[in-house]
């Protein structure tokens, strides 16, 4: 087992080596910064794995390695797009890993105690979900960004985490139907705010996470069916009520008449993926400049263009393996709160991947969210790593 893991880790280094060698030779004679990036990443991975192994020998190291692989693909692409962005991402990655290690190593007391903070989580959920509605500004058609001082961030990113914490605590001792009413109301309010802020991607994630957690807590398929029914009718109602939703659906249904207007981003993303083909055009050989927000929401498209559809498949497979490993660790959880928390966080990361990849390829209506661990973005990366640390913690079988 450990021998195979070591090999796995070594292969990641080899991947990074070729990736940065490729980036290095793009500039003549050679770009030394690529070498530095390679070195830093290798050291980060080696050090973190060593710490995990040293202090928590029984934890699931595959989760961490899968994540690092996703981050590596992201940083390679970001380096090719804009070295400044890649440097920033590297710094955030470092910060994310530190936060991750902090939670894993120093949060000695069990997670279960946090279950008591149900109403704190409830308040946090409502606050973060609603924040952008009142003081938010619009980026790319969604009013879901907030600027406080020099820092802009998406409050819904935090809202999601608080909602999962709240649900884990509220659903951990559901024995009567009545106890489902309060979580149901909180979920609906959160969804409502997302629709108003035009952040349909987050709405979809909230829905998937909530349904999964309710199902895990109750084992009743009926609730899933009822939720699906409510979601469908809610969707139909929003479609009738809001023009921005109608427009989204229209663009998704047939983007071609609006190539220079509403569907510009989607179409450029589709061109990028289609032009790339199976093996891509090669790093530095494509035209990521034509794709909007290529470092964040559309990073999947530019990866497909330059590194190929097969690399796109790899990202999806890696994310699925990560999901499998994460949700599986819920089995090791000692109490309902930890179980639900782990499952909720795993589903959040996986759904986010599905929604954005489905969106940029025109499979489902496009909504702007980040691709976890791959996209550039500080808050998103930090939050993903914090979620991961909880999953990792649970995978160790906390006491």
């Amino acid at each position, binding site marked *: 087992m450990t021998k195979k893991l070591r*090999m796995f880790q070594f292969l*990641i280094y080899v991947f990074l080596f070729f990736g940065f060698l490729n980036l290095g030779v793009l500039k003549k004679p050679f770009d030394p910064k690529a070498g530095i990036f390679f070195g830093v990443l290798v050291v980060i991975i080696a050090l973190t794995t060593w710490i995990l192994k040293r202090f928590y020998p*029984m934890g699931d190291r595959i989760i961490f390695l899968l994540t690092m692989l996703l981050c590596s693909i992201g940083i390679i692409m970001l380096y090719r797009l804009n070295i400044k962005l890649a440097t920033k991402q590297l710094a955030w990655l470092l910060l994310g890993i530190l936060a991750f290690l902090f939670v894993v190593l120093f949060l000695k007391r069990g997670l279960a105690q946090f279950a008591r903070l149900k109403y704190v989580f409830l308040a946090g959920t409502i606050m973060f979900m609603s924040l952008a509605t009142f003081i938010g500004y619009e980026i790319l058609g969604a009013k879901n960004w907030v600027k406080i001082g020099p820092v802009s961030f998406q409050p819904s990113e935090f809202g999601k985490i608080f909602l999962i914490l709240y649900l884990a605590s509220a659903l951990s001792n559901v024995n009567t139907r009545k106890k489902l009413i309060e979580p149901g109301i909180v979920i609906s309010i959160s969804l409502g705010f997302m629709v108003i802020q035009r952040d349909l991607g987050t709405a979809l994630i909230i829905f998937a996470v909530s349904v999964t957690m309710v199902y895990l807590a109750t084992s009743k398929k009926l609730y899933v069916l009822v939720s699906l029914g409510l979601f469908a009718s809610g969707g139909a109602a929003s479609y009738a009520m809001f023009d921005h939703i109608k427009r989204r659906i229209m663009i998704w249904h047939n983007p071609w008449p609006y190539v220079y207007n509403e569907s510009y981003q989607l179409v450029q993303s589709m061109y990028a993926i289609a032009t790339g083909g199976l093996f891509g*055009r*090669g790093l530095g050989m494509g035209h990521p400049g034509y794709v909007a927000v290529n470092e964040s929401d559309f990073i999947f498209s530019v990866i497909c263009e330059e590194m190929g559809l097969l690399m796109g498949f790899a990202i999806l497979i890696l994310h699925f393996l990560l999901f499998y490993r994460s949700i599986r660790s819920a089995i090791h959880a000692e109490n309902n709160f930890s179980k639900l928390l782990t499952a909720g966080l795993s589903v959040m990361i996986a759904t986010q991947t599905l929604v954005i990849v489905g969106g940029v390829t025109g499979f489902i209506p496009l909504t702007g969210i980040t691709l976890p661990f791959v996209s550039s973005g500080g808050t998103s990366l930090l939050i993903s790593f914090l979620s991961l640390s909880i999953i990792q913690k649970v995978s160790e079988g906390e006491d």
Partner: protein
Amino acid sequence: MDFSSLSVVFRIVLVVLIFIIILYALKIISKDLKRGKPGKNLGWKLRMEYSADKSSLEDGEIIPIGSKLTIGRNKNNQMVLPSRAVSNFHAKIYFEDGRYMLEDMDSTNGTFVNGNRVDKKSLQPGDEIRISETVFTVTDDD
């Protein structure tokens, strides 16, 4: 050198590499899929690290856990530890919900995992269990 040609090599190498890595990950992960069949346990074992009384068990000996293993001084236990400091029915390890659980049966002197006294805990490979002066480690090696 013509870079557009070199880039062909690079993109193939990168794609091939990532899929080798995925295959590797699958190989590691498939191990617990194979074991995870319902009704079966994971086939983990205990390895005797330090045997206090030198009577029935020797250091380095491997004891399969099976689906349930009871530990205590009483002869009816599956694993008998004759030491005075061990309660009659001291602890049990059993397989439930896809994982191994260690449960202390209200013993006088307690059961320790990785140095912490526990009542009930899920086990991981590498965990160190101590009962009285006897020490085992949990292992998933074949």
